């Protein structure tokens, strides 16, 4: 008999310790901030360059 998709696996899987959870959260926040800064930078560059944003020498 096959195991249905919605059945829980027998093994508990990976259980993160509080420290691992804290570090994962810190990494997630850092990624979010980095992406936010990157988006703002691209937005600022787009404003400066205007419609020809991809027009550049060479």
């Amino acid at each position, binding site marked *: 008999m096959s*195991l249905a*998709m919605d059945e829980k696996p027998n093994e508990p899987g990976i259980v993160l310790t509080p420290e*691992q959870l804290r570090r994962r959260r810190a990494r997630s926040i850092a990624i979010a901030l980095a992406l936010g800064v990157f988006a703002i*930078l691209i937005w600022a*560059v787009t404003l400066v360059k205007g419609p020809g944003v*991809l027009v*550049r020498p060479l």
Partner: protein
Amino acid sequence: MSLTSESADLAQPMRTGGVYAEPSMAGVGDYIALLKPRVMSLVVFTALVGLVVAPGHLHPVLGFFALFCIAVGAGAAGALNMWYDADIDAKMARTLDRPIPAGRVQPGEALAFGIVLAGFAIVFLGLMINLLAAGLLAFTIFFYAVIYTMWLKRSTPLNIVIGGAAGAFPPVIGWAAATGSIGIEPILLFLIIFFWTPPHFWALGLGRADEYARAGIPMLPVVAGSNETRRQILIYSLVLAPVGASPWLLGYAGWPFGVVSILGGAAMVALGLRLCASEGPAVERTAKQLFTFSILYLFVLFAALLVERVLGMQGVGAPFGRVLG
């Protein structure tokens, strides 16, 4: 086995060698450490000087974006270096606590981190600034990660002489970002860093020859010994002093830079001579002084160029006028 049971198997947590893969313990600081922030700060500073002293005008936002891409590219190169060098980093006290040998970051994570950042930095520098700057950044990352890290570092005592070119490119990239071309000035800035690198790193290596030997890195102090290394430091300092003053001698910088570069170059040569004459424990002490002073020397040289540009003093009081161009 039915399709449903296969799907259920795929949903199991990833296993490595029959045991669960350990969840990452990497903190944000570990990923920042992979970027080698101290090296990155020097890269950003020298690139800034190349960008500012270049003729013409680049909008400050675009200039900042170019520096951002150069910084990220430098960080990516640092991450790739740490990925490849994790085995020798684990053998040296100075690098033992880096994220990979310490076990906080997996090698594959560092490799992916480096490749993704390098790709982003190169693509966006090319899209938003110009292709020459992006090409130079790509070459610099390749040179540092592949030519220096994977090849030269473990195979020849000239590793940091040739590999030093990677650290010398940032002002050229900054100049290229501002102008879309390369002139004599950025080549002079390149040469300054190129000839500055060997005495700087050999002075560091003199006190750590045992560690480098244990890690199997053929640094000059390991292969040729202390006396020959000190002689080479002096020779490179003798070359560096006039090269350091060349922007002033050739008319690209004013008298303040001339004074700073001549005094600084003379001090580098004096320290090189003292290092050659040192014996016993004084060797390591003098090498540390030379190492520390070399950082100050390079910083002051580039800062002088920056200040002259801001004050509009470029080429004022040059002995021969502008010789080239």
